[in-house]
């Protein structure tokens, strides 16, 4: 250990001139959101709590569904109606099992105090949402090809399937992040997430299922993708407005 106080602390003017990190408000905001995103992934890759939960839940559910129904368990006529909905049910439950942990863990391990004092709430929300979205998209990238292969889901339009997964996954991530922040502040956390998630995520899931059906059928009703994107946007705006109120005392 160096002698106390022997190391010269940096002069503020020199730091501001040489550091280059004290940038414009927009750059600082982006830097904060990126820092939260990187920190969450770094922590996750060392503990793998959420990765294991999401993956185990998704694979277990997929195997259960495939063994119960299998490619032959659903008639071709019913396949279009049943299989897209089952896919989103698996994704919803995997997300519900893994994503809300983020904020709850910040509160339980008392890291939330340091975060509250240092982070801009909107940047924190964006960083956390990006982390959740990337986690969910990674899960989709692993799970969906398996699901399509095991259930022999005939996808006619890959573009629509990607759009459904991207827009649906993003909405699920935004909604889960906001709800997780609310749940983390409350007692009775276990029961609260599903109760809050139902009204918030139901419209999103119905649209995502409809779009996935369109990917299987080859066409989709007018405005479904636009409505899904609009709902994502509405969730994002609500999240940005509500999060500072939820997060701060």
């Amino acid at each position, binding site marked *: *250990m160096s002698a106390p*106080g022997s190391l010269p602390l940096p*002069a*503020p003017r020199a730091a*501001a001139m040489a*550091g280059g990190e004290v940038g414009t408000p927009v750059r600082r905001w982006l830097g904060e959101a990126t820092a939260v995103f990187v920190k969450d992934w*770094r*922590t996750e890759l060392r503990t793998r709590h959420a990765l294991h939960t999401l993956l185990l839940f998704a694979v277990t559910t997929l195997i259960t569904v495939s063994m119960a129904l299998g490619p032959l368990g659903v008639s071709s006529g019913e396949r279009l109606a049943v299989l897209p909905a089952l896919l989103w049910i698996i994704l919803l439950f995997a997300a519900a099992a893994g994503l809300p942990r983020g904020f709850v863990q910040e509160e339980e391990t008392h890291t939330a105090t340091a975060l509250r004092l*240092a982070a801009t709430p909107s940047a924190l929300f964006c960083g956390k949402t990006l982390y959740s979205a990337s986690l969910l998209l990674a899960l989709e990238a692993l799970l969906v090809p398996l699901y399509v292969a095991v259930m022999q889901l005939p996808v006619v339009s890959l573009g629509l399937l990607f759009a459904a997964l991207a827009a649906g996954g993003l909405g699920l991530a935004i909604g889960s992040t906001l709800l997780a922040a609310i749940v983390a502040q409350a007692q009775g956390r276990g029961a609260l997430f599903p109760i809050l998630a139902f009204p918030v995520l139901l419209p999103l899931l119905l649209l995502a299922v409809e779009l996935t059906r369109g990917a299987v059928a080859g066409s989709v009703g007018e405005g479904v993708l636009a409505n899904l994107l609009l709902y994502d946007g509405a969730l994002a705006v609500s999240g940005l407005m509500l999060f500072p109120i939820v997060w701060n005392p």
Partner: protein
Amino acid sequence: MGRYNPQAMTAPSDSLVEFTDLLRGFGRVPVLAGVSGQARTGQVLLVTGSNGSGKSTLLRCLAGLLRPQAGTIRLREDGRELDAVERRRRVGYVAPDLAFYEPLTAEENLTFFCRLRGVPARRAVELLATLGVPARRAAGALSSGMRQRLRWAWALLHQPRLLLLDEPFQNLDEAGEAAVRTLLDSHLEDGLAVIATPSPLLVPRLAATLDLSRHHAASDRPTAGRAGTA
């Protein structure tokens, strides 16, 4: 010690923290009832009191982590009054309930907060070296004394004007206490501090002592009196 705040780069000027008639309870239990006090640049306000007398609650209110149910808190830096949101981001805070990401190293933790605070990452490295914290060790593997040093490093990252210190020398060995006392002395050249401790403590530049035990006893009586600085 200077500050990263560009306004502070012009010339060090007077700062002030002042709280008046603070009221805060939890449920039906009153914890703070009409607590007042103040400190200026170069001064320490010492808050003492027995367990449960409201020292930590007072500091959490001053930090903006708890909203008082009544009363006012003012923090003025360089002649400018900060609102509650600015106050929360500007203060330096050391407390037992302040924790870090255990899977990350001490340096990774501080570097993360440097990015949140817009401070060059080398500041984290310098503070860890000054305080003798092993930079490459996971925060979860640090001893309680080293965690306390890490809390100090975290609190000083952005060179705040106001330091809120809740039992700041807890778990520190002789070398650790000497290191943080040197940093506190340096901070008080143009900053101020509010220090909470259960028993009177030898601190530099003591301006006043606020005994919350006496105040708490008074506030439990039907006609609660207003606490002042002694």
